[in-house]
Structure formats: structure tokens, C-alpha cells
């Protein structure tokens, strides 16, 4: 979608990610998605009178890893209270970082070469989860509400970008790249469907060269698709409004996935006054150099670097191959590709097998050693296995382990001897004289016909390239 005339959209994203800590941000309760409601709770995360928060060191580690991956400055920081009444917030205030976040500044480079600045990445606690019964399913008009406090106090990092994004596609790419970074740091599992990453988008429009327009914030987008669609819709809405002589009101908007449109949640004048102030129950957080060094040393390479390393193994990669590389990086399976390259194998073939066969059964990759993968790819490359056979072998090893050579043998995948192939091709030529004639006269399509027939007779044991060689020899 492009905006009409010389309109330009200006987008900044606020991304919340839950951290993969063992326990919650300020108590020892298990941080686990999907438990029975109200089982991972204690006096602290329930905000019982007299309870006090104690900061989780592991959460600080993760927050710093995120900051380091985003080239942020790690600075002494403080915790504030954001005060507002809501039933799923057990203390009726949220502990968050305010004017002094742990990570400030930074940037994220996107695969297309563009750079999006990072304003800050700060720590805060998540709220519980309300379920509203009756009415529209929202709080207003519900018959009753149930609250699950398992999520209350789960550690979050909120990553705030600068207003540097200029298209919905770029917003999506930014979110996807950030997701890859968060997974690479080990701080997040990046599971959008479980709400472990959530997006808020600040959207405004302007004519090129003009100052920023008034922005609207779209809250709680929970998939890359919704993010892109919501931004597109909102930018177009604002352009139409302005072109019609209207003005954009600063407000918070809700994205309706089914209707495919945004609607007003609250206007700025009604915005809560959160009465932020330093949380007197917590002390300043100032990780010393030794702590920072420890965290930095444990940081794995980021997706951009890993992507570059895999692409460097490919000769003039096609777009489809680059997409496949994306899958490999996303799943963190590039070690298989590197192992094949190290064995002087075909990295392109390895990328294809990882992006398809391994990706299809990613839960079982532990069954597949890099040695087994390399052996299978090399067998395919040498023509000892057909593509179909190689896929079957990989599928077997993924499902239940084992040695690829032994599996190939037990399936009867040994390559046909040259004699057997020769006699098979000879008998087919005799059986299909017309087709043979046309092939001899230059109709290359018929090669596929003969390959198909050979495969049929040999139950897929033949190698396509060997069949063509056999046909050529007799042409």
C-alpha cells in the first residue's frame, strides 16, 4: 500500500517483550505461560499488604543483553511507580523505569540497509490477565470479570524506537528483525501467539519535507500481520482525514483484526495522570563494569551477522534462497549449513534441506547430528540418493535418530548399478519408439517423460541426472 501524492507516514514502535527468566521480576514465583490460573502467585506479586519487591538479577542480565544487542548505553537506572487503578494490576500501580532507563539510545540495522534508532529499552513488570464474562467481552458492560495473576510481575522489557520508520513494510521488517535479536539474546522466545511480544505503533502522516504531524497510538498489536495492516489503515485514515480538511486528534486507538480498522480508545485529554514517582521500596540499579562484561561475553552473535555468514557461503543467491536463509537464521539452525560447507559440500543444497525438511520438524532437530546431516547432503550431492530419497532419510533421522547410511541401505536406496539403469533405459526406448524419436529430434521435454518412467520401474531408486546421461549416450 502506498500513500497518495506526496504523503509520507512516520512510525515509531514500542515493543514489549516478556523475558525468559525462571522467576518473576520482583519475587520467586515461577515465570511460566499456560499454568492453571492463579497458581504462580505469592504475597509479593499479589501485592498483599506488607509485601516488598526484590529485583531479579537474571532479568537485569536479559535487559542488558537486549541493550547490548541494540548498541544502547547501559546506565545507572531507577524504578518508578506508574499509578492507575485496574483490577488485573495487584498493587494498582505498575513498577516501571521512567526517566532513568537501564538502556538508552542505540539502533537497529535492517536487512535492507536502513537504520532505525532506539530511544530506550527499559524494564517493567507485566500485569495479570482479565477475562470479562458477558457483554462485549470488554470490561465495560461485562457481567463479571475473572482475573488470573500468573502473569502479574512477569518481567518485561519495553523497546522504544525513534520515529524513523517510513512504511508499514519497514515496520514489519523492524519488528521481525527485533524478534530475531530478542531470540538470539536468549531474553525472549519471541512467541507472538502467546503474547510474549506485543507491539504498540505510533503513527502520523505528513507531506514530504513538512514537520511531523499529530500522532495516534495503536495499542496491543500481537502479530506482524496485524502490525502492518493496522499501520497501513491508520496512515490512510489520517491522510483521508487531512485531505478532507479535518485534523488528526492525538489519541489512543484500538485495532480490530476482524473489521480491519482502528477505532478511538481514548483521547489525550482523558489520558490518565500516572503520578510517576520513585519506588521507595527499591534501590537504584547500577550494574558495575564487571557485571556488564560478564553479560557481554556471554552474548551470542546477532541475526544480521549470522545471516551474513550464511549468505557468504552461497554463490549469487536467488531471492528464494535468501528467503530460505531467513528461515534458517530464524530457527537458529545455521550450524547445519556451516557443517556442510566445512565438509566442502553444497551450502545451497544444505540451506534448502534445512529451510524445508528440518523446519518442518523443528521440534526433533535434536535427533539429527550435524554429522548425519552432512552425510545425507553429501550422498544426495554425489547422486547416491535422489532428492526424494534424501528427504526420506532426513525425515527418518529426525523422527527417530539413527545412521543415514544404514537407513538408506535398509530402505533399498542404494544407487542402481550402471548396468541395471542401462538395461532399464534400453527397454523403455524399445517400449516407447515415438517418444524416443521426438526426443532424438530435440524435444527436451521428453527427458522428463523417460525419467518418470525409470523412476516408476525402479521405485524411485534412480538418479535423474544419471538417467539423462544414459539417454544422451544413446541419442
Amino acid at each position, binding site marked *: 500500500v502506498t500513500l497518495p501524492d506526496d504523503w509520507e507516514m512516520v512510525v515509531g514502535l514500542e515493543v514489549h517483550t516478556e523475558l525468559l527468566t525462571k522467576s518473576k521480576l520482583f519475587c520467586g514465583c515461577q515465570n511460566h505461560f499456560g499454568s492453571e490460573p492463579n497458581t504462580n502467585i505469592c504475597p509479593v506479586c499479589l501485592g498483599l499488604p*506488607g509485601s516488598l519487591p526484590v529485583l531479579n538479577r537474571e532479568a537485569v542480565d536479559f535487559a542488558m543483553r537486549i541493550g547490548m544487542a541494540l548498541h544502547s548505553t547501559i546506565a545507572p537506572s531507577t524504578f518508578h511507580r506508574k499509578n492507575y487503578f485496574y483490577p488485573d494490576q495487584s498493587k494498582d500501580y505498575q513498577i516501571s523505569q521512567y526517566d532513568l532507563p537501564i538502556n538508552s539510545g542505540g539502533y537497529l540495522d535492517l536487512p535492507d540497509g536502513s537504520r532505525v534508532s532506539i530511544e530506550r529499552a527499559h524494564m517493567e513488570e507485566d500485569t495479570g490477565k482479565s477475562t470479562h464474562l458477558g457483554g462485549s467481552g470488554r470490561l465495560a458492560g461485562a457481567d463479571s470479570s475473572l482475573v488470573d495473576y500468573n502473569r502479574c510481575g512477569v518481567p518485561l522489557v519495553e523497546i522504544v524506537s525513534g520515529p524513523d520508520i517510513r512504511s508499514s513494510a519497514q515496520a514489519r521488517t523492524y519488528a521481525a528483525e527485533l524478534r530475531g535479536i530478542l531470540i538470539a539474546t536468549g531474553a525472549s522466545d519471541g512467541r507472538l501467539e502467546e503474547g510474549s511480544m506485543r507491539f504498540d505503533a505510533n503513527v502520523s502522516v505528513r507531506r514530504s519535507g513538512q514537520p511531523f504531524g499529530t500522532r495516534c497510538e495503536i495499542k496491543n498489536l500481537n502479530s506482524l500481520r496485524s502490525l502492518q495492516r493496522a499501520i497501513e489503515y491508520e496512515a490512510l485514515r489520517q491522510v483521508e482525514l487531512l485531505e478532507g480538511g479535518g485534523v488528526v486528534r492525538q489519541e489512543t486507538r484500538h485495532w480490530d483484526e476482524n473489521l480491519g480498522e482502528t477505532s478511538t480508545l481514548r483521547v489525550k485529554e482523558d489520558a490518565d495522570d500516572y503520578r510517576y514517582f520513585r519506588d521507595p521500596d527499591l534501590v537504584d540499579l547500577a550494574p558495575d563494569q564487571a557485571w556488564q562484561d560478564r553479560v557481554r561475553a556471554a552474548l551470542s552473535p546477532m541475526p544480521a551477522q549470522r545471516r551474513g555468514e550464511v549468505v557468504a557461503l552461497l554463490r549469487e543467491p536467488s531471492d528464494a534462497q535468501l528467503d530460505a536463509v531467513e528461515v534458517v537464521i530464524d530457527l537458529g539452525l545455521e550450524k547445519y549449513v556451516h557443517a556442510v560447507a566445512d565438509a566442502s559440500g553444497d551450502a545451497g543444497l544444505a540451506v534448502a534441506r534445512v529451510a524445508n525438511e528440518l523446519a518442518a520438524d523443528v521440534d526433533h532437530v535434536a535427533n539429527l547430528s550435524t554429522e548425519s546431516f552432512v552425510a545425507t547432503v553429501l550422498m544426495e550431492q554425489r547422486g547416491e540418493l535422489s532428492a526424494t530419497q534424501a528427504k526420506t532419510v532426513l525425515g527418518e533421522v529426525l523422527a527417530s535418530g539413527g545412521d543415514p547410511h544404514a537407513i538408506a541401505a535398509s530402505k533399498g536406496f542404494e544407487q542402481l548399478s550402471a548396468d541395471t539403469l542401462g538395461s532399464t533405459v534400453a527397454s523403455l526406448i524399445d517400449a516407447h519408439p515415438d517418444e524416443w524419436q521426438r526426443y532424438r529430434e530435440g524435444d527436451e521435454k521428453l527427458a522428463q517423460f523417460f525419467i518418470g518412467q525409470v523412476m516408476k520401474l525402479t521405485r524411485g531408486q534412480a538418479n535423474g541426472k544419471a538417467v539423462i546421461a544414459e539417454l544422451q549416450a544413446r541419442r
Partner: protein
Amino acid sequence: VKSATQIAADVRSGASSAAAELERTLSVIAERNEELNVFLHVDIDGARAAAADVDARIANGDNVGPLAGVPIAIKDNLCQVGIPTTCSSKILEGWRPPYNATVIERIVAAGAVPVGKTNLDEFAMGSSTENSAFGPSRNPLDPTRVPGGSSGGSAAAVASNMTSLSLGSDTGGSIRQPAALCGLVGVKPTYGLVSRYGLIAFASSLDQIGPFSKTVADSALLLEVLAGHDPKDSTSLPEASPSLVAHVNDGVAGQRIGLVRELFDGADESVVTAVRAAAAALREAGAKIVDLSIPELELTLSAYYLIAPAEASSNLARYDGVRYGLRVKADDVTAMMEATRTAGFGAEVKRRIMLGTYALSAGYYDAYYGQALKVRTLTINAFARAYEQVDLLLGATTPSVAFKFGAKTADPMAMYLNDVFTIPTNLAGDPALSVPFTTGEEGLPIGVQLLGPGRSEARLFAAARVLEIADGRP
């Protein structure tokens, strides 16, 4: 009446038993609680079980701690498993905590027997216990007068000989002021010395738990048990508990003690006289008395009444009817919260929530809360400068002796002014104590206040002990 030190010695030696000491306590409570309204809840069964446990451990030859068999009264803003904990508020009526405050764990581990929960001004906001939703406590020395507050019930428990020790909390004077009005020793420790875990917060940056007792030695004994690092409280000091009992008789020879004009100016004449007499007694014992003025202290009352309500407005937000305590039914969640808080909180609590909410609001923060924080910094610096010149400071605890019921309820400012001498140390985070010294109108006790820099409790107890002896309680 025995001191806690004596009870613990007798229980350990077999001269008495925890059970016998508890029964004496329960009989005094039975006799006087109805009149004085000291305890909101007496945990007879739990206390008897705890006492039996102490006696069994002694019979078994176990080393029971320094508070062996000592009955102790607990201010009802401290959480104790299964025991109704109300903060003297209707909003928490019926709530029973599922966990113990750290101080409860510590005193029980030291052999003490918690006997019940004492009355206070609602959420510790007040100076007379007249703000309790369950009626005021009475001063055992004159039941027509207030015992002070907010820890009025804990003070009255000791003053009426129900127990020899009690726990209070002090945010702006809530231990020292009732101690003064009831003729007791009361201590506000260094901020962070005693864990706040399980203390229901009023103003988190100011609240500290501390002891009441009749003797200086007993307060030192209890504070030594209470103090020390707690990993559950992020603001807890990292150091282990200081040695206090061993230093009670250290005296004040060679100590420089500053007599601070701003800490007694404007007090009743009897109080000023008592403070000057205390200075003379300390000089007599070998201290060097230095007249001091710390003008910044004049600003602290105003700063306190912004900072404490601001924190309270946030701390008390959780009482919304959703999870525990009172719930007043209404059409929707917001209306339910409003109705619950309207019905559950008393007038003074509402006044402070409104003050604090206002002070933190956009557009007012800098002029009120932000300004108060600056005054707080000035106060901290002013005390620090004073402690470069002297070791301890001396002043009054309260402007007057115990006042009559209703004397100050009509005018909140008059009530607030009662804390003018005690508030400064809470803002600074430094320790202070009140020790009885001479008497005033109608023979009512007067408390003088000793203040010191952070972690100077041992020195404070030694100076207080000098005054105790000089006042005729050897």
C-alpha cells in the same frame, strides 16, 4: 513488674516458665483491655502454644533465644500468619495474612511469645489513636487522655503492664511520641536497620519498626533481635545486627551532645525545662553539651506532609476490593472500587490520600512533591553537618504531655504539629529514641529525644541509660 530481660533470665533458668509469664500477661489483659482498648485481637491459643513450645525446648535443654518466654504485643500493621491484621481500618477487616513479617519470624526465633495485635491510628496516620476504626486506646496513666499515636495500643500495652515489650512502627514519630506520652522508652531505628517486610506500608521511605519498653536495656535487647539484613527488603542495610545490650552502660563521658533549639522551641514550659535538665544530667555524666541551631528543621513538617501522603496515596491504592478485605458491591468494577474505598477508609486516611494524589499530579509535582524532596535533601545534609560537630543531638519528643481526647481532632494542623520534633529524623533516615525524663502537668511523663547519625543506636542507648539513672530508675 518484671522487665523483659528479667523474664527471659527467669524462664531460661527455670525460676519461671513461658506459660506462667503468659498467663500473667493474659490476666492483666482480661482485667484492663476493655477499659483501655489496647488489643484488637488477643491470640490466646496461639500464644499458649508458643509458650508451651518455649517451655518444651527449655525442658529439652535447647538454647532458647534472648527473648525466652517474653510475652510481646504486636502493632496491628504487622503481618502474622492466620492472625487478623487490620491496620485499624474497616477496609482490611477480616483479612488474615498468609505470611509472617520478618520481625515476627525473628522474635519467635528468639523465644518471644506474641500475644496479640494492638490498636493504632488507621494505617498509622495519626498521633492519638483517635483515628482507629475500632475506637481509641486510652492512656493507662490517665484514661481521660490519649496514649499518643499512631502506635498508641503498643505503648498502652507496656504502660499498663500487660506486656514488658511491644512492637511499633514510626513514620513521623509514631513510636517516640506515644512512648513519651506513656512514660516509656521508644526507639525509631536507622532506616534499613530493621526489615520492613510484612509491615503494612504507610510511607515506605520513612517507615521503621522499633521497640517499646519500660527500660532502656529492654529496648536494646529487643532491637538487637529485630535488626540485621533481610534479603526480602531491598532497602535493608547489608550489615548484621549491631551489638547493643553490651553497650547500654557505656555512659556519655567525652561525648559531644548538641542541644538543638529547633527541637524544643515552642514546646510547653515543662517540656523545655525537662530538656534543659536532661542536658544538665548528661553534662554531669561527662558529656560536652553544645548549643546548636539547625534552621532547616523548620521546613521538615511541611515536607513530611507532602512526602508521606504522596507515598501513602500509592501504597494504599491496592485496597480496591478486588482481592481481599472489604468489598462493597456496585454495578461495575470502577464503581465497586469507589464504593469500597469510600466505605472502608476513615476521614484522615482519605485526607492524606487526596493530599498525596494532588502532590504527585501532573502540573503540581514540581511545586509540591519535588520541592519536598529538595527539603528532604537539605535536612539530610543539615543533620550530616551537625554530626560533624557533635556525636548526638538532644531535644524534646513532643510539645506537651498527653492531651485529652478530642483536644486536637477538630484541627488536623494542631494534630500534625504534635510530630514537629520527631519528623526530622524520619526524613533523614537517622535513628532517634525517646526516654522518659521528669514529669509535667498532673505528674504526667515527659519524654526527651536523643538523635544520632545512622547506625548510632548503641550510643543512643548509652545516653538514654544515663538519663534513666539520673531520673531515678537505676
